[in-house]
């Protein structure tokens, strides 16, 4: 009996995945974004193997070397070096690890907290809902970077604290989304059916309703990934995030502030790295939203 059951399950999941890919791949930008992001992940994983130099190695004889194609540049430092002689390309490559790490950690914390809070608010309604959402409104009323700055100032500068601060600031978005999705699913008949069959509160919240609220959360999670990277870069730029000599892209920008006119490459390349990463992730997020939105289904 079990042999006949198992293949059908694989087929069901495979079919859903291929249908998802069909819609996702219709958005060329999203596919490009996915490829770029894939490359980024590979670069991050194989960073020590790819990078020509160590990220902390200082070459005192090659301070502020221009990029390879410019006069004074050398093939040893393809993208040039910074003020203390560190190879920019290697730092960028290692920095990708930090950016991905930040994105993953922040989104995980914000998602978990936001889903829990949103579920409870949407399911129980009444004063629980009001209280929770007012707290969320208060958090949302502050400019997010400012709030993150305040939190980091309280907790102390550093990458970990920066991540926690950004996660707290991003969490209300997820809470709101989850609550909205829970509210719209609550009235559906399958929830009533589950109730009639005897499901208790916990089961209804996590097993029955939550899996159906996942689509908008995936999209928001993808977009928050890029927001997290940007915010961490901003905090790093302000000196409140990752501390030097960490090769985090935003911190690299902070170090390079004074060289904007003198040595443009120290500032530009980390900036481009941030730009490309955030753009790729946003394109993926757009593609996912189009693919996962049932109303846009064309056939």
């Amino acid at each position, binding site marked *: 009996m079990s042999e006949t059951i198992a293949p059908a399950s694989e087929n069901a999941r495979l079919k859903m995945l291929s249908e998802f890919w069909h819609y996702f791949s219709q958005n060329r930008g999203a596919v490009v974004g996915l490829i770029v992001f894939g490359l980024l992940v590979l670069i991050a994983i194989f960073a020590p193997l790819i990078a020509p130099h160590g990220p902390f190695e200082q070459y005192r004889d090659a301070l502020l070397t221009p990029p390879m194609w410019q006069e004074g540049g050398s093939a040893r430092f393809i993208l040039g070096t910074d003020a203390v002689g560190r190879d920019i390309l290697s730092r960028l490559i290692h920095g990708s690890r930090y950016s991905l790490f930040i994105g993953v950690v922040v989104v995980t914390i914000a998602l978990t907290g936001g889903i829990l809070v949103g579920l409870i608010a949407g399911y129980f309604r009444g004063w629980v809902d009001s209280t929770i959402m007012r707290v969320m409104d208060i958090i949302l009323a502050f400019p997010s970077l400012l709030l993150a700055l305040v939190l980091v100032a309280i907790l102390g500068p550093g990458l970990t604290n920066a991540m926690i601060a950004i996660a707290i600031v991003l969490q209300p978005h997820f809470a709101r989304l989850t609550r909205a999705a829970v509210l719209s699913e609550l009235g559906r008949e399958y929830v009533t059916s589950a109730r009639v069959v005897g499901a208790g509160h916990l089961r209804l919240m996590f097993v029955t309703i939550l899996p159906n609220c996942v689509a908008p959360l995936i999209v928001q999670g993808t977009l928050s990934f890029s927001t997290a990277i940007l915010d961490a870069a901003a905090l790093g730029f302000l000196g409140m995030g990752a501390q030097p000599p960490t090769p985090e892209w935003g911190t690299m920008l902070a170090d390079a502030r004074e060289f904007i006119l003198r040595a443009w490459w120290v500032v530009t390349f980390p900036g481009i790295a941030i730009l490309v990463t955030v753009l790729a992730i946003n394109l993926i997020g757009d593609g996912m939203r189009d693919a996962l939105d049932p109303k846009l289904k064309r*056939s």
Partner: protein
Amino acid sequence: MSLFEVENLTIVFDTSAGPFTALDGVSYSVNNGEVLAIVGESGSGKSVAMLAVMGLLPDTATVTADKMNFEGRDLLHMTAEERRKIIGKEIAMIFQEPVASLNPCFTVGFQIEEVLAEHLKLDKKSRRVRAIELLHSVGIMDAVDRLSSYPHQMSGGQCQRVMIAIAIACEPKVLIADEPTTALDVTIQKQILDLLLQLQADHGMGLIMITHDMGVVAETADRVIVQYQGSKMEESDVLTLFEAPQHAYTKALLSALPENATGDRLPTVGEFMVEQQPGDSA
């Protein structure tokens, strides 16, 4: 003269699972003052055919036909602009969900006058007068108040009347009604059907009634086309269809009607059709 002539209409959709033939070589014709009922269950392609005629299908649909004429004019090869002049004015359509088919952001009066402005180019005062006239003719007596109501403030039956008012605003030659009463209560259904027949008799329109309900067919149609899974099963006048159905599917539909039940069990389509479609049979 035949108002409406469609020959060998085929519609293929481009889906994630490959091309899907929603309609396979079906022909339709409607004359002045005639009520044609297109009967079928879900998946029969009955709505899709009329949407193709109106040009309302998405880009993923490929529409081919030997002939698709309205009063001798070729609908199939018309430009979108020429078609827009005909749709809503000479061919009109009403849909199944009346409240959802009206724009929730605008008043009923605005939506009726929109049609008048677009097709008849009336000025503001004449539009208002005509809108009140139209609401009266569809049985909404407090027309002046209703002009400034929003769709969500009205019942399903009233919204359907408004839809009908919008549809007949320009005195169309053909009115296509796509399951107009399916979402309505039984007593309201009767009122709407009576209204449609009344208007059809008064204006001499051709009425195409798309439905899955054999009862509605019996109460309204002159001629009937029975469709199943995109193909035409049978076409005849209404009395012959009920008295002496030719095709197995029609016989199955008629005997599945609870009122025709003879014994304890209702016969099912499967027991009539020799050939079953592959895949899921509900």
